[in-house]
């Protein structure tokens, strides 16, 4: 509980720095009844590392994310976060950001962002205060009392990310966080997420079907095959030389790795 208290005060002083947690996935298999979804996956994420998972639609990426978060248990194999392997332990260390923002329509933007703090037992005023302190940095200042339905898609996604961040967990599990956005907003949000993670590093597992997004945001990208999923390639993302997103994704090194990832993805679909 001591580390817990330390983490919360870290969030208060704005850039919060929870202790990094590593993830170890060993020989994990999963099936829904007869339907085999995950064949055998080994994956390691170092503390504060960002790993992207790309793969064809319906290949079991989201299932893998739910397994890591402790929302499900694997049929075989083991998953450990900071050495803890049981699902309640994993659940306590992961914050999950689903593809749909799932903001609660009966709460304001501020109360949605503060949801985890309220669940953890903070009083309403205290939770709001701490969430409000981050609204400016997230480009949401002035929208505290706004209902989710009245926010733009990009803003909703930022509120959802803020809600995930304020949970104060060492691991963020992001499930296609920008899939529902238009291309321009998505590119903006990718640049914004990269900056947010630089300011407040966490261990991140990012599921996406966008190879470029995965390579731009991650240190490492694992390419998954069609169902049942296995890892067909692991690629290291090139160090970005350009400071901005557009410069980074047009860099020749980046383009070369992206092509390699696309090849692996195509082979994995067969």
């Amino acid at each position, binding site marked *: 509980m001591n580390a817990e208290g330390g983490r919360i005060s870290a969030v208060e002083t704005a850039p919060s720095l929870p202790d990094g947690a590593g993830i170890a996935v060993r020989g994990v298999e999963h099936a829904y009844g007869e339907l085999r979804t995950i064949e055998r996956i080994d994956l390691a994420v170092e503390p504060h590392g960002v790993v992207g998972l790309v793969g064809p639609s319906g290949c079991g990426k989201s299932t893998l994310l739910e397994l890591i978060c402790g929302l499900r248990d694997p049929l075989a194999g083991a998953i450990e976060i900071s050495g803890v392997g049981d699902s309640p332990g994993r*659940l306590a260390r992961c914050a*999950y950001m*689903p593809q*749909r923002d799932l903001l*609660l329509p009966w709460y304001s933007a501020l109360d949605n962002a503060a949801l985890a703090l*309220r*669940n*953890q037992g903070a009083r309403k005023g205290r939770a709001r205060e701490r969430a409000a302190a981050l609204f400016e940095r997230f480009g949401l200042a002035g929208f505290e009392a706004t209902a989710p339905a009245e926010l733009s898609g990009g803003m909703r996604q930022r509120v959802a990310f803020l809600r995930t961040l304020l*949970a104060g967990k060492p691991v963020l599990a992001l499930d296609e966080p920008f899939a529902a956005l238009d291309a321009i907003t998505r590119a903006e949000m990718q640049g914004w997420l990269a900056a947010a993670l630089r300011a407040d590093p966490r261990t991140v597992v990012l599921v996406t079907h966008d190879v470029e997004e995965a390579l731009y945001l991650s240190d490492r990208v694992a390419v998954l095959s069609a169902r049942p999923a296995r890892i067909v390639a692991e690629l290291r993302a090139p160090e970005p030389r350009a400071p901005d997103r557009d410069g980074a994704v047009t860099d020749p090194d980046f383009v070369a790795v992206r092509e390699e990832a696309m090849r692996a993805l195509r082979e994995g679909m067969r």
Partner: protein
Amino acid sequence: MKRWLPPTLAIVVLVGAWQVAASTGAIASALNLESFLVPSPAEISSSLWENRSLLAENAWVTLREILIGLGCALVTGLGLALLLHLSETLRRAIYPLLVSTQAIPIVVVAPILVVWFGYGILPKVLIVALVCFFPIAVGALDGLRNVDPDTVKLMRTLDASRSQIFHRVEIPTALPSTFSGAKIAAAVAPIGALFGELAGSSSGLGHLIVQDNAQLEVARLFASVVVLAAIGIALFGLTALAERRVVTWR
């Protein structure tokens, strides 16, 4: 202003046509009746005014039956919905039984309840509760089924306990359809009370209607119906108002 114009106009046209048809004796002669058997709106409103204390006295009796019955329906309906939501086995066991309570013809049951429980308020309250708990229970149950499983997963990773998920996600999700059920209940409650009184009573609007029917006091009979309808409309309106105050996100 614009919102109120169409319904007001419709009522004015309808009542006006009735007034003309009744006061000229067109309806009575078409049906081959004495004209006092077809009161005009003007006659009904003057009867409403002349009998105001008698009507108010009996309306109060009926209103009490309705309100207590609705209260019982609310408690049992919501309680049952919650119970069936928590246990899938219980839901499978009891849901058909729940539906079968609505297949019971109230007209047949009401006299039996009067025989069992006497001429007092109890059988009326039971009948109102019987017709009202069903829409409330089904509304709440359907609302609770609408809970998005992904939102529940999300809440679990945001450290929510079972009771926090219930308060912050399940109850608000269930509210709109629970209110739909409550509005139906509010609208049918007066009918339930009326059936109860018709089966056997010594006061209430239903009692008055039975007497006026026997004595051919047709204008006062219609006045009682107007009062009963007003009670139904007011209850529905109050429920709709409460819904708008509570469910602000729709």
